């Protein structure tokens, strides 16, 4: 047992039209420090729900199980406390914030996290310098810092903006929920490089994806297959290639 991220028997449901809908049905997952793990699985298997539950979205009700991060009870923490503790979720569909300037948003977030981590806040000049460099490394147009958060951004720009946030917030555990979807090959490489730059013995990532392509750039340590709210199979990187070629049907039939 590592003391990094431990998920055990996690069950969660959501209120859908007045009915409780069970989505996670006992997820067990252990991610040691310094590793990149991948979750694959058919649509509706609970991958995004798992990422939301870990990030602290209130709409999901945890009915059983535990999740600890660095030994702390993750599920008892507010979303902002989880971020301060080093967790980051790159959203599958990044949210637009009309009227909120991107640079101000990024600086507010960075300083909130720094404050919570007992670090000094950054002044506007120091922050902008850092943000511009990080944006440049992601091949983002300079004006994207001046625009409103995600408003009028293309799909690719939104995903890069997620990676930019991740870079600036310096998490120790990042969940990337289909960050590769809708990206062309060049954008995919840039995003993967952004993640790779964070790789360190103290940084781990959980990557949710449908495609092998991202994994060519982001060499994973473990692959997990999720179906019907559980992890049904885990293996090495070769499992992703096998799924890419053969689909999920075979694996689903084996566990049925």
């Amino acid at each position, binding site marked *: 047992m590592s003391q990094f991220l431990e998920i055990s028997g996690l069950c969660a449901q959501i209120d859908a039209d007045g009915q409780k809908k069970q989505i996670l049905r006992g997820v067990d997952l252990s991610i040691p420090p310094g590793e990149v793990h991948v979750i694959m699985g058919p649509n509706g298997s609970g991958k995004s729900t798992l990422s939301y539950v870990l*990030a*602290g*979205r*209130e*709409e999901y009700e945890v009915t059983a199980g535990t999740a600890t991060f660095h030994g702390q009870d993750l599920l008892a923490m*507010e*979303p*902002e406390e*989880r*971020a*301060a503790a080093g967790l*980051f*979720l790159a*959203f599958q569909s*990044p*949210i637009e*914030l*009309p*009227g*909120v300037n991107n640079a101000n*948003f990024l600086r*507010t*977030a*960075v300083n*909130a*996290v720094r404050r*919570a981590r007992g670090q000094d806040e950054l002044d506007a000049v120091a922050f902008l310098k850092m943000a511009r460099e990080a944006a440049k490394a992601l091949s983002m147009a300079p004006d994207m810092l001046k625009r409103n958060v995600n408003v009028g951004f293309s799909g690719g720009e939104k995903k890069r903006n997620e990676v930019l*946030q991740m870079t600036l*917030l310096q998490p120790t555990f990042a969940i990337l929920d289909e960050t590769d979807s809708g990206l062309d090959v060049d954008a995919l490489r840039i995003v993967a490089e952004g993640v790779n730059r964070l790789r360190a013995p103290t940084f781990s990532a959980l990557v949710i994806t449908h495609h092998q392509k991202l994994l060519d750039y982001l060499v994973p340590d473990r692959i997990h297959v999720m179906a019907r709210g559980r992890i049904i199979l885990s293996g090495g990187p070769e499992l992703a290639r096998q799924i890419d070629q053969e689909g999920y049907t075979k694996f689903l039939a084996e566990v049925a």
Partner: protein
Amino acid sequence: MNALSKDMSGPLALFANRLNTLAGAERQSAAGALARTGLPDRKVEAWHYTTLRALGKQDYAAPPMQVEASTVRSLLDGVLQAHSAMAALPRVVFVNGRHAPAFSALPDDVDLSFFADDPQFGQQAAPDRDPLVALNTALAEDGLVLRVPAGVDAGHVMLISLGVAGADPLSFHPRHTVVVEKEAHLRLICVQAGQGAYFHNPVTDIQVEDGATLEHLTLQTEGAQAVSLGTLYAHVGQQSVYDSFVLGLGGQLVRHEVHARLAATRGVVHVNGAQRLAGQQVGDITSVITHAASDCTSRQTVRNVLDGHARGVFQGKVLVERIAQKTDGYQMNQALLLSPEAEIDAKPELEIYADDVRCSHGATVGALDDDQLFYLRSRGIPEQEARQMLIDAFLDEAIALVEDATAQTFCRAVMAARFAGKGESA
């Protein structure tokens, strides 16, 4: 004139003593109209959503001639210190409806006089149709009379109206006139502030002559107990622009009523605004924009943020007369309700008699967006700060409509000073 008093019932009785001793035909006629109609109640359509109950039960006295200078100074400093550029701007300061020369720094490039020296009521106001204008007509003592000569760019002028009262209510009824002559330009920043139990009842008569531009910000930061019911008339000439914005933050009951008339072709009127209210506050933005000539444009975007038991009222009528072909009209009222008890009453109206026009209007009401809130919190921003960011963003999109950079920065500075860290609520 004592015969009038027996007809004065309801809130009008609070002014009966003063209305019975008027001199001059115009004032007496206004008092007579008032005696017939009384002050409006909910049965009057234009006042259906806003009652005058806040006027209370105590008589309104005329303001005393002497006011503590240190009190005025501190209120004035509160206005000017919100943003560093403000103290350097020319200003005309009124205290309890009377010009206070000791606190003013009069502008150079304009013709300036005062209502007290030569009372002129103008052509636009209609005391027989609007009781609040009748009350002003009857009781007006002073007011700014400002004229920007043709072709002159007069820069900024601030009109600062301070109310200074104690526990006993007093009322003042200033009568302002602003004329921007042909091809002239003025940026007018009106600020209303004060303390104590006062009733501010201004009437403002604005004329923007052909080819002229008036950019007009009204900042309402009236005292917590204040009732402020203002009526503004704007006559907009050919190819001229009346670009107005009202930012409503203060007062117990505040109503900003605008009657704008696009009287000649290719005129432009903006009646934009934002209000942020809490507690038991009521804020009312009412407007009638009349397109009386062809090829004119009107724009109205109003955003409301309402917390606690606050109530916002938006009544916006766009009247397009038969002659006003090629009218381009847009009106939008949006409200963000931060508590279950907060309320917005919105009545958008289009009345169109021309057949070749482009007019649209709409209204939205909602709470803070859960997805946006979670997104911010997932980035480490604490809930209260995240709420504040979203509220600011909602209002800031309206404030961004203020074209004049000084006025826009002033609005933002005032908002930041008043609301920093106040995103909390149920």
